[in-house]
């Protein structure tokens, strides 16, 4: 690995100053489970590594049924699924965090790092998209909110300017009779990168068994994570039945532009997108029926 300088700011303000000072030559370090591998491979060669894990603001999980969730970008996955509120109100995002790599990886990897790495296959991203999460980005010029589905621009690329920092995710409080789910397909039972990942969040109208709102996010089936807009909208107001779910699955497939690689063929990925969209919606709906927000 080339020589680097390591800095460990304690506040967002300090961090942003450091990033601004070094510009292209700085890279934030969180869990390091992607960055350290890239540094070793020489894929990224920043002179300065800015460790943002020790910034308390980026390590908090703040939830209230009124205000929803503020999830620090640097919270490691293991702290997400150990959190009772997360398990209870955001099971889909929680299971995505629980699926990433191994326990060893989950001890380090963060949802923010997962997103900033810009991989189309990031497990937590479709779950965030499904929940309508927004990224709070802070830079020298101030801060802005970016919807997760607009965050990645190409493999390994995001909307972040060199001096900007993703500080936290803001996720709406779960609506009545709503829940979410995330499923991915991998050839083994652990350790793999998603061949396809599907996150879904649904809100139900239990009076006449309809879906009032749905959002579907897709991973590993295009150059960036995908918000399957048409598929999501197609479910709004529909009765819960196989026909509606099948239509959504077909529209989800239509939203993909997968490639052939060592993880699967494009043809296979399209097929699995359909399978997982059906399974994920069914799981989210089942959860929403008994959701803690139901009473």
């Amino acid at each position, binding site marked *: *690995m*080339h*020589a680097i300088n390591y800095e460990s700011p304690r506040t967002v303000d300090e961090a942003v100053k450091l990033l601004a000072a070094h510009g292209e030559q700085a890279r934030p370090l969180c869990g390091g489970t992607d960055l350290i591998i890239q540094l070793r491979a*020489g894929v990224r060669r920043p002179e300065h590594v800015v460790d943002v894990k020790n910034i308390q603001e980026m390590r908090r999980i703040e939830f209230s049924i009124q205000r929803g969730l503020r999830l620090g970008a640097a919270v490691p996955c293991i702290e997400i699924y150990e959190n009772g509120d997360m398990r209870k109100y955001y099971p889909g995002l929680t299971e995505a965090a629980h699926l990433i790599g191994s326990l060893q990886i989950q001890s380090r990897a963060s949802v923010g790092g997962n997103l900033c790495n810009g991989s189309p296959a990031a497990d937590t991203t479709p779950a965030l998209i499904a929940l309508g999460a927004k990224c709070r980005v802070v830079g020298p010029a101030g801060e802005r909110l970016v919807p997760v589905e607009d965050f990645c621009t190409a493999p390994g690329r995001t909307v972040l300017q060199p001096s900007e920092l993703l500080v936290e995710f803001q996720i709406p409080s779960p609506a009545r009779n709503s829940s979410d789910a995330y499923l991915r*397909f991998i*050839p*083994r*039972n*652990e*350790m*793999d*990168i998603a*061949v396809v990942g599907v996150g879904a969040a649904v809100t139900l109208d239990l009076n006449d068994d309809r879906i009032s709102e749905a959002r579907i996010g897709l991973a590993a089936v295009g150059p960036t994570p995908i918000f399957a807009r048409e598929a999501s909208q197609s479910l709004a107001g529909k009765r819960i039945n196989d026909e509606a779910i099948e239509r959504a699955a077909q529209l989800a497939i239509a939203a993909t532009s997968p490639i052939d*690689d*060592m*993880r*699967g*063929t494009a*043809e*296979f990925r399209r*097929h*699995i997108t359909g*399978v997982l969209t059906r399974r994920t919606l069914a799981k989210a709906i089942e959860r929403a029926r008994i959701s803690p927000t139901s009473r």
Partner: protein
Amino acid sequence: MAASADGQGYRVIGTRPIRHDGIDKVTGRAKYGADYSFPGMLYGKVLRSPYAHANIKSIKTDKAAALPGVKAVVTADDLPALADKMEQAGEQAINLSQLSANILARGKTLYDGHAVAAVAATSPHIADEALRLIEVDYEVLPPVMSVEDAMKPGAPILLPGLRNKDEGPEKQTNVATHLQFKRGDIEEGFKAADHVVEREFKTAMVHQGYIEPHNAVGIYNADGHATIYCSTQGSFVVRSLSAAVLGMPEGNIKVVPAEIGGGFGGKTTIYLEPLSVLLSKKTGHPVKLTMTRAEVLRASGPTSGSTIRCKMGCTKDGKLVAAQIWMAYEAGAFPGSPVGAGAMTIVAPYNIPNLLVDAYDVVVNRPKTAAYRAPGASNAAMASETVIDELADKCGVDPCDFRIMNGAKEGTPQTAGPPYRRIGFIDTVEAIKSSPHYKSKLEGRNRGRGVGSGFWFNVGLQSSAIVNLHTDGTASLVIGSVDIGGTRAAQAMIAAEVLGLDVNDVRPLVTDTDSIGHTDVTGGSRTAFATGWAVYEAAQDTVRQLKERAAKLWEKKPEEVAFSNGQFTAQGDGVKPMTVKELAGRLARTGGPISGRATVNARGVGPAFATTVVDVEVDPDTGKVEILRATVAQDVGKAIHPSYVEGQMQGGTAQGIGWALNEEYFYDDKGILRNSGLLDYRMPTCLDLPLIETCIVEVPTPGHPLGIRGVGEVSIVPPPAAVANAIAHAVGVRMTELPMSPPRLLKAMLSRRGGAESQAAAAGR
């Protein structure tokens, strides 16, 4: 005196003591190759070709050499040119000029990752940075990645000098060897068949996947002598090959075998060892090289991918009458795939009167293959054992009964001609047939059960052993066979059995090439068999000498002294029986210390057979296969330490399941390896496997004092076929390609359903 090989009356053999080296390995104290460091040690790194096939026009190293901290840069020009001919090296015949060209490319790179240059620097990071500064001018050539492409007329030629007997001395070719085995009359054979199944199979190149990357520390001294510390399966083969590649006298190199973190055949040759000495010679410092995982996958020796056409016929009552096989194996960049073994194992478990096997060793732009656990046999069994399962289905015969009906036994001719002596193939099938697993009922949709069998030769070769009896009556056992999976314990148990000592009173020690007689690799499942034989004889030699001492004390002739159950006795008055411990205390006054010695070039090696049953469940929507249950039965001759015998059976089964389902080298159209890491080279995790049940079958090897058979390899042979057969019975598709990964299996299932629907449509239903 140990009891006879019928397995009765052993005191130590067959028990499960804690391995002698265990405590070092659970406390982190055991020293593996990469754990060695020396004062002033430098770190070496290797520059590797980014192209699958290219001419090297020039290499500029001055910028790299100028980087602060860099002490030396070497290329193939720093190694002697060697004769282009086969030499014997331990258990393998090897071409030294090709071996050298694989360690540092000469003029041409032949695969993605082929070593081109090496540097030594004061830190591994500086060495890494230095690699980026070496300028290589490549002329990129078209890569040849498959045996089919390599065998096409006009295919790009990898090795300009390569010729074969069929095509003659004029013709440049990628086909290194054509082997043929013939028996009976193949046409007549198929005429007599009621059922014939013929299929073409493809199996992917796969890697042994040992967790410890290759490593070496070289220390060259001004007197022309060098020491190499490395993790290897054979310290003597490292010495002879490194000496040849470096142009040094063999005696000037001492190889100290470190603990080894897995090998499975992949550490029976050399990669970094001569470079560590070369760089040490240039710098005057010890130099350590370790491969990264990507280097291990790109540039060490995996095993061959293959194409196999298998046609077999049987009568309606299930008697095999004919088999015709065409097989071509990827050798990698240089000749030497295990296709010969594949040809001689593919129908080895069966008695087939009419047989024709054609086998081709083909060079392609992939890493030079190395041995991998029963090399060549798993590919072959994937073909023959699935075809046999199909024939059994056609005959309506239980797959175990079909194998028993046609199974090879004593006297059955092997593929290459010689008849079998006593073997336990049918015993393994019967063990599976009567196992709780096979007797259990498998219920549920998309679930199926499959059986497969496998054969492996095992080898004998040379081993040495020394037993030093100490004055306290304990013994140190010195051997040259590195311990890759618990063999120290087995060797100590054999010595303890013979000497009548407690197993913990024998301290096994694996030593370096200067401290023990020649010992071939820990490979070919030979260590318990051949080194165990040497240990047995060395212990007997110790007993013989002890009898002389007892005779002295008792004023008797040595032949009057008897030894049994750890006690020396003789007839007559004044003779008080003595134990080995008691006698050991009297050595000084009866002639001095005792060392028992023996060397063997072991004959009469007994082949091994295994039969495996697997239950699977297939996800019909995704093609993902779950292994529900697996049981393996293996003829081990005599289990010295049953826990480690079971471990070999379970480990081979796990590797075979990985080979069956997800492991494969994935090259792009430019011949670049796309999955050179353990994230995408998918070996089974412990969530992918069930507990693996074992049935130890003991049919002693005739002639061996303990009846031992090698146990290390054959268990990897049956699983791919067993899994394929289980999938066929679960979802009705016959898979003919490895790995049977979700995309492949899903495609096969969808096309079958598509076919069924179109048939239904055609039938107007």
